[in-house]
């Protein structure tokens, strides 16, 4: 076959090749449509559900402390204390709890009352615990809990109670629990 015939033959086969490619493309589109349709039909037969539960943590704050004057009418020539006490938090068995008592005056120095920390749920507060200050103090308690697994948490401060040293005689101070 001459080269002219070969070139003519090549040009004639180009349209046929394009037709084949087009047909292949159409078939591909049809197949894709069928698959998408099947997938959509499948999705109509599923339903998503769930169950929920709200989680929160244990509250280890001590109860709001109370203040009780030991000797309201003290005149025995000594400084009389007040008893500050509080309810312990409910903690799991095997936990250890210690308490820190803090007194904040309306003006002046914040004090950590001793003995702190302590495992006791009450303490005697003397005027000397307030540095003999006669300012009213706001007293709160925090708990430090060591859980059975070893984690150690310190609670937020408890509710508060007021305590104040009041001068009785010239030299003596007695603790009072103002409202």
């Amino acid at each position, binding site marked *: 076959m001459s080269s002219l015939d070969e070139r003519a033959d090549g040009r004639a086969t180009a349209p046929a090749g394009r037709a084949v490619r087009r047909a292949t493309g159409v078939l591909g589109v049809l197949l894709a449509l069928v698959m998408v349709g099947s997938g959509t039909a499948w999705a109509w*037969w599923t339903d998503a559900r769930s169950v929920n*539960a709200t989680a*929160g*943590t244990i509250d280890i704050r001590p109860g709001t402390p109370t203040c009780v004057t030991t000797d309201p009418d003290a005149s025995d020539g000594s400084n009389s204390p007040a008893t500050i006490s509080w309810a312990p938090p409910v903690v799991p068995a095997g936990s250890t709890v210690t308490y820190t008592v803090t007194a904040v005056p309306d003006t002046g120095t914040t004090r950590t009352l001793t003995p702190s920390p302590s495992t006791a749920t009450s303490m005697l507060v003397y005027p000397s615990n307030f540095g003999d200050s006669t300012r009213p103090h706001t007293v709160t308690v925090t708990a430090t809990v060591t*859980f059975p*697994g070893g984690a150690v948490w*310190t609670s937020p401060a408890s509710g508060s109670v007021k305590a104040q040293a009041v001068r009785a005689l010239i030299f003596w101070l007695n603790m009072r629990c103002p409202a």
Partner: protein
Amino acid sequence: MPSRLRPALVACVAVVLLLVGSTTAYAAWSRATTAAAGSVAGGTFAGTVTWSTPLNLAGMYPGETRVGVVQVARTAGTNGRWVYTVGTPTVAVSGAATTASTALATRLTVTPYTAGTFSGTTCGGTPLTLGAASAVQALGSVVQHCVAVQLAANAPGTVQGGAVVVTVPVTLENRSTN
């Protein structure tokens, strides 16, 4: 037209003529009639997903595990292959995001189990393969799965006061019988 395409073209024309001719011949030997219409209704696959033993997660402390039981029931349905899939549980902040809630969300581990039983705070069976479809469930079937939630033993005190929501997703499916 290239010579080598001519046989293919002839074959195509022959097939088309054959099909047309067959259809015409068929029509000469057919008779049309109608059948009584019947009702057609879509199938259903009703099911429920609930807590059969509620999961109480209030007041958790470090290292503690709590358990509940989720129940999947096929309550109705007609045709199809009814299955369910338990997805990966999630823990998300409840309400406004706080430092404590954000921290708490990362300290809880949620594990669904194959069995619906538990002893104390220990679920029976083994941890469930999440995302895998169950066996086909018969109409009226009820399946239970124990779910254990643990607060990490080393959870720091900064999680105090946090609130989160634990969610166990379950997908119900009615698969084709084909």
